[in-house]
C-alpha cells in the first residue's frame, strides 16, 4: 500500500484556489469515504458512500442489495403454506409480523374466517415481536452512540421473549408459527404463566432503560436536534412507522385499518413533534409500554375456542382424526401433496410492523402456488431517505441518524 494510503478512502485534491501571496486560503480537502458494507453501525450490510468536507457530509449515497436472496421469485415455486417459512427470513427481528401479513393476504384471497382465539394469539405474539424488535433496536442504537450497558439490559428481556417464542413454536427466531388458516399448533400448556411472568415485570424494565438514557446528558446531547427531515419529505420519500409518528403524523395501521381484531384492544398511538433522533427514541419507548398494555389485555381476555379456521381444505386435520377418519385422511393427503388452490385475484395486505408499513401484494391465478408475491418492506422505503437526512450534518451524526431509522437489511433486500 505505501505512502499512507488507507483502504476504502480516496482523497480528492481539489484544484488549488487562487493563491495570493498575502492571505493564504486554507485548502478544502474533499474526501470520499466508503462506510460499510461491514461497518458495525450499519447493522447488516449497508454500504454508504459519503462525500466529506472535513467532518461535514456533502452527500451520502446508500448502496444496498448485498442480502438479496430472491425471496419474491422463490414464492412462485412454493405452495401457499410453504411460503410462510420464507416470510420469516425477510426480517429477522420481526418474523411473526411478516408471517401475519402473508397469512392475512392469503386468507383475504381465500375468504377465510379466523376464529377469535387465533386472532388474539396473533395480536399478542406480534406485539411480543414488536417488543423484541424495539429491544434489539434500543440496545444496538445505544451502543452506536456509546452507551454500552443498555444493550445488556435489553437483551436480558429479549431472551425472555425468545423463550416464549420457543415455547410456542419450537424456534427462537424463525418461528413460522402463523399459518394460513390460523396457528401452526395449539398454544402450549402453561403459556399464560410464562407471558404473565414476563409482562408483569416488563414495564418496570422500560423504566430502567429510561433511567439510563432519557435524561442522560451524553444521550440527549448526541440525539436532540439530530437527524431532522421534514414530514413532507418523509411522506414523499416513503418513510413509514415510528419515524413518521416522531414527526407528528398520527398514523398507525393498527388503528386506521385494523386487522386481526386490533380494534378490540385499547391502546394509544404515541406521537412527538420534535422529529429528531431523540423523539424517535421516545416514540419507540412509549410504543413498548403500549405493546405491553396490549399483551396484558390479550392475556386477560383471551377467548376460548379453536386455533384454526373451519376449512378442512386448507388446514391440516389433527393427527387423531387423520388416523381414524377417511375424509380427514383424504384432505391430509391432498394438502400435503398438492397444497390448496386459491381463487384467482389480487390483494394488497398492509400491517404495522415494528419498523413501519409492511405490505404484501399477492396475485393468484387460481392454482396452488402464488403467481406473484411482492413484499413492501419498510426498511427499503426508509433507507431511501438517508441522503436527505444526513446532508450537511457531521459524520458522527450519521451513526445516530441511521440508528434511529431502525432498518433491517434483509427486509430491504429480500
Amino acid at each position, binding site marked *: 500500500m505505501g505512502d499512507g494510503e488507507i483502504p476504502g478512502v480516496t482523497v480528492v485534491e481539489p484544484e488549488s484556489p487562487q493563491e495570493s501571496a498575502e492571505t493564504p486560503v486554507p485548502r478544502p480537502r474533499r474526501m470520499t469515504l466508503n462506510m460499510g458494507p461491514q461497518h458495525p453501525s450499519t447493522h447488516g450490510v449497508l454500504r454508504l458512500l459519503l462525500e466529506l468536507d472535513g467532518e461535514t457530509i456533502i452527500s451520502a449515497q446508500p448502496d*444496498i*442489495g448485498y442480502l*438479496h436472496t*430472491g425471496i*419474491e*421469485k*422463490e414464492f*412462485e*415455486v412454493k405452495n401457499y403454506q410453504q411460503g410462510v417459512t420464507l416470510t420469516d427470513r425477510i426480517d429477522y427481528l420481526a418474523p411473526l409480523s411478516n408471517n401475519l401479513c402473508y397469512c392475512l393476504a392469503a386468507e*383475504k*384471497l381465500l375468504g377465510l374466517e379466523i376464529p377469535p382465539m387465533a386472532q388474539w394469539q396473533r395480536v399478542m405474539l406480534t406485539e411480543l415481536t414488536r417488543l423484541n424488535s424495539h429491544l434489539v433496536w434500543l440496545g444496538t442504537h445505544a451502543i452506536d452512540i456509546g452507551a454500552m450497558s443498555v444493550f445488556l439490559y435489553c437483551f436480558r428481556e429479549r431472551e425472555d421473549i425468545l423463550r416464549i417464542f420457543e415455547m410456542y413454536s419450537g424456534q427462537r427466531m424463525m418461528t413460522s408459527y402463523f399459518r394460513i388458516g390460523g396457528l401452526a399448533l395449539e398454544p402450549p400448556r402453561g403459556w399464560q404463566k410464562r407471558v404473565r411472568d414476563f409482562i408483569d415485570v416488563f414495564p418496570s424494565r422500560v423504566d430502567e432503560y429510561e433511567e439510563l438514557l432519557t435524561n442522560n446528558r451524553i444521550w440527549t446531547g448526541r440525539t436532540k436536534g439530530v437527524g431532522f427531515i421534514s414530514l413532507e419529505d418523509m*411522506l*414523499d*420519500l*416513503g418513510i413509514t412507522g415510528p419515524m413518521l409518528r416522531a414527526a407528528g*403524523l398520527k*398514523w398507525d395501521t393498527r388503528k*386506521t*385499518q385494523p386487522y386481526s381484531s386490533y380494534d378490540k384492544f385499547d391502546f394509544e398511538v404515541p406521537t412527538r413533534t420534535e422529529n429528531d433522533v431523540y423523539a424517535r427514541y421516545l416514540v419507540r419507548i412509549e410504543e413498548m409500554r403500549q405493546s405491553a398494555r396490549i399483551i396484558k389485555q390479550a392475556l386477560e381476555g383471551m377467548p376460548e375456542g379453536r386455533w384454526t379456521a373451519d376449512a378442512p381444505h386448507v388446514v391440516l386435520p389433527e393427527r387423531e382424526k387423520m388416523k381414524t377418519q377417511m375424509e380427514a385422511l383424504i384432505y391430509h393427503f391432498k394438502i400435503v401433496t398438492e397444497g390448496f388452490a386459491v381463487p384467482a*385475484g*389480487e*390483494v*394488497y395486505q*398492509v400491517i404495522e410492523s415494528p419498523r413501519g*408499513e409492511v*405490505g404484501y*401484494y399477492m*396475485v393468484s391465478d387460481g392454482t396452488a402456488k402464488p*403467481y*406473484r408475491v*411482492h413484499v*413492501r418492506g419498510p426498511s*427499503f*422505503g426508509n*433507507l*431511501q431517505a438517508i441522503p436527505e437526512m444526513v446532508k450537511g450534518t457531521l459524520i458522527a451524526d450519521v451513526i445516530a441518524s441511521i440508528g434511529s431509522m431502525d432498518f433491517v437489511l434483509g427486509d430491504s*433486500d*429480500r
Partner: protein
Amino acid sequence: MIAEELKTFPVVASLAEAQPEALVSGKFDRDELTLEIAANQIAGVCAYLKNEQKFARLSTVTGVDWYPEEPRFEIVYHLHSPERNQRLRLKCRLAGGNPEIDSVTGVWRGANWYERETFDLFGIRFRNHPDLRRIMLPEDWEGHPLRKDYPVTGDRV
C-alpha cells in the same frame, strides 16, 4: 370504459372527469379499488392524484409478468392517502418487446428505488428516471429474474 357503480367512489368520479382518456377500466374486489390507467398517461394521473386528491404516499411500485400473454407486463402502483385513510391501486399494461413507461419520480421522489427494483428484476425501463441502475443484483448480471421465462433452477450458461 369505467363502470358506473365505480363512480360512487369520489376519487374515481373526479379522475374520470379530470382525465377521462387516461382511465381504461376499474374494479372493486375484496375491498380494494383498482384502476387501470393508459400507460402513456401514468405520470399525469399520478400528479393529479397526489396534488388534487391527497394521495401523499406511494406505498410501492412493482410488476407482474403474464408471459406468454400479451400485453405481457403489468406495472402496479399502490397509492395511499393517510389523510383520507384510503388506498388505491393503479395498473398499466405494457407489451413485452421493449417495455418502457414514464417514471413517477417527478411526483413522489420515493418512487426512485421502487422503479429501480422493477427495472432490475423485470427489465422495464422508466423514462426520465434520474438514476436507472440495477439495485439488487450486480451491475453485470444478465437477465431479469422475476420474469416468468427466467429459470428457477439449472446452471447459468
